[in-house]
């Protein structure tokens, strides 16, 4: 531990993964090798494939690797954040198709655990852990993205719904809404106050099969089909689907960010291109290629050590919002630049055509998804604003 015990130092303690996490890693690798050998997914084409794969999620659920930090009464395994970290990174390293369960595993489940009534927890959480229940996130709107607290989609009390709420408005950029069973969304329950513009937003659990929800796909420039606009028209939600404090969701949203922002998915989303770059360069790269590859590995290693450290903080019960924001800022900028660096370094690669076939196939995809990596889940500008606040500048 190298924490210098002086005030104000930025601390990323060198967390060592415990033996049980390394045992688990071996199990996860064996499982993934089996899946790949059985042809259930192929790491070399997976980045291009539709990631929504419920069968895969069910098999992951059978292993107990979804919601694995949650209490056993809700289907969890009560394992540590560091064990969850290992599962997450091993899946990402081979581009395993995790989308059907990942959102629920990472953030929707933890929100329900904290804020949902007991009956809902008992109903939904075990289904998530079995890989049978898919979530999406309803935050951005046509006129509010980074400015989350400008959200305008409304939830109004209604006599018709027995104390429940009626939703009206539009959410947008909603990944996987077309496949999701539930959304956790942010809706306006009253106007912002002059003193606190973050006031007036509440978080709701929404069953996506409720009448009054229209899901309109939005194509993206990289050919993906997972983006949607979700329109709510007099959509009724029961009273017990309000999560946490009415009008006070902004407090809930910030603690969620530490979970959302510090995971290995924030620097491994284009990792496949680094592996294929190494293959394209071959076992005897020239000095320029070796130097470029070495820098990328050093940068990746550092990001990973930082991310493990943040997960150690989560395990210790802290809310490392600042540290999580730093990891996401550095990690997303890095994974965005990675395809371009790989493109440069591969320019004169003397490897055989076989060695670079997969690289050549995946590079255009990686280059085209790169722009979104510093936008999704909190833009670079917003993250740096949070870091600046942590430094006492605002």
């Amino acid at each position, binding site marked *: 531990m190298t924490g210098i015990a002086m005030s104000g130092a930025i601390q990323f303690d060198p967390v060592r993964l415990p033996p049980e996490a390394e045992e688990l890693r071996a199990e996860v690798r064996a499982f993934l090798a089996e899946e790949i050998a059985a042809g259930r997914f192929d790491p070399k084409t997976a980045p291009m494939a539709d990631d929504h794969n419920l069968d895969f999620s069910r098999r992951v659920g059978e292993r107990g690797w979804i919601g694995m930090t949650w209490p056993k009464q809700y289907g969890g395994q009560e394992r540590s954040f560091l064990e969850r970290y290992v599962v997450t990174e091993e899946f990402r390293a081979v581009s395993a198709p995790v989308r059907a369960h990942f959102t629920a595993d990472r953030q929707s489940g933890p929100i329900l655990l904290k804020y949902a009534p007991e009956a809902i927890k008992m109903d939904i959480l075990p289904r998530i852990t079995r890989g049978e229940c898919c979530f999406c996130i309803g935050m951005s709107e046509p006129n509010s993205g980074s400015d989350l607290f400008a959200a305008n989609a409304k939830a109004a009390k209604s006599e018709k719904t027995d104390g429940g709420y009626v939703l009206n408005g539009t959410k947008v950029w909603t990944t996987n809404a077309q496949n999701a069973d539930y959304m956790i969304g942010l809706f306006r329950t009253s106007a912002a106050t002059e003193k606190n513009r973050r006031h007036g937003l509440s978080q709701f659990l929404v069953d996506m099969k409720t009448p009054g929800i229209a899901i309109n796909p939005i194509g993206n420039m990289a050919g993906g089909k997972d983006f949607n606009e979700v329109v709510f028209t007099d959509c009724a939600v029961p009273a017990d689907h309000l999560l946490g404090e009415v009008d006070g969701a902004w407090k809930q949203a910030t603690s969620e960010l530490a979970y959302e922002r510090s995971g290995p998915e924030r620097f491994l989303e284009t990792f496949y291109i680094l592996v294929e770059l190494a293959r394209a360069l071959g076992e005897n790269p020239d000095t320029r290629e070796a130097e470029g590859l070495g820098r990328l590995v050093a940068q990746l290693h550092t990001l990973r050590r930082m991310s493990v450290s943040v997960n150690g903080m989560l395990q210790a019960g802290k809310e490392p919002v600042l540290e999580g924001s730093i990891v996401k800022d550095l990690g997303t900028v890095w994974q965005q630049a990675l395809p371009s660096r790989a493109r440069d370094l591969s320019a004169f690669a003397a490897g055989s055509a076989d060695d670079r076939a997969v690289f050549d196939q995946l590079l255009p995809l990686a280059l085209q998804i790169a722009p979104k990596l510093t936008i999704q889940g909190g833009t670079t500008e917003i993250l740096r604003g949070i870091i600046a606040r942590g*430094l006492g500048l605002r």
Partner: protein
Amino acid sequence: MSEPDTIIIDTTDRIFRDLGDPQAIIADPGGAWKATLWQALEEAGLTLAWVPEAQGGAGVEVMDGFDILGVAGRHAVAVPLAETLLAGWLLAKAGMSAPLGPMTLALGSGGDAPSVRAGKLSGVVRGVPFAEDADHLALVADSDDGRQVVCVALAGCTIAGGPGMAGDGLATVTFDNADVVSSGAVPNTLGAEDVMLMGAAVRAQQMAGALQAVLDISVDYAKERMAFGRPIAKFQAVQQNLARLAGEVAAAAAAAGSAADTIQHAESFDSAVFLEVAAAKIRTGEAAGAGAAIAHQVHGAMGFTDEHILHRYTQRLFAWRDDFGSEAEWAAGLGAMVAGGGADQLWPLVASR
């Protein structure tokens, strides 16, 4: 994970705070503060931290030594504390006791690398920091009895060269039948690259410390400096730059800390240590370049003057990133190792701890 020894850290910090005020050093670079500061460090047992008690040192944990150097880096004070720790570590590896007083160390290479013949050392070493300040120099040299760790007195040797970017001296030292003070066989546990690895890990730790200071100084300055009627800290462009600086500082701290922790727990300097140290030296070196640029931008012309303290830190960052292998050199080595292992071993290597 062991808890840091906060007494050692606090003691080191207090000594540097009391006796190494950067403004006083700028006013009088070669002044009496140097001897006073060194004496305090020596009396606290910090200078021979990595030498076991039986060999005349303090015998602290490897990690505690790195913590001392992180604090020293934060103060960027011009005394050869890191070099003396490293020299002591090298002498102790060969079972030798270490002399008191400031030391430095060198890596010989090429045709004129020093060797011991009939008990006398001859040859040339280059890029030696603090050669003018140190009493002794430690190095690994060929001898009639194989590779040896050698301790030699610098008095009487030819020392040439300029101040280096850090201003701490960067000398070429020529030994011409110099007396060997003590020597010991290189043990099997000390690999050919180990001095380089340990030196790089040490410089990474110092850079991480100096970068933290650079961030603190820059944040304070941005809050005080007024422009267009308000502190420059209130401008988003400045905030975004300082946030980037914080990211570089965090990366440096994580990389250097992880390498130090790995060395603390390693039985020998294996490929895991190589990955950690290479990554630390590369990433802290990159952070030094990017971080210094932002810090100077925040400070404007003021930070470029010789009276402002910022340059004490940034000049050392420039110098330290060159010592014990630059980013480019380590990256070429790391890249060759990764490529040699094959693409499918890349992930297992990165996820090895």
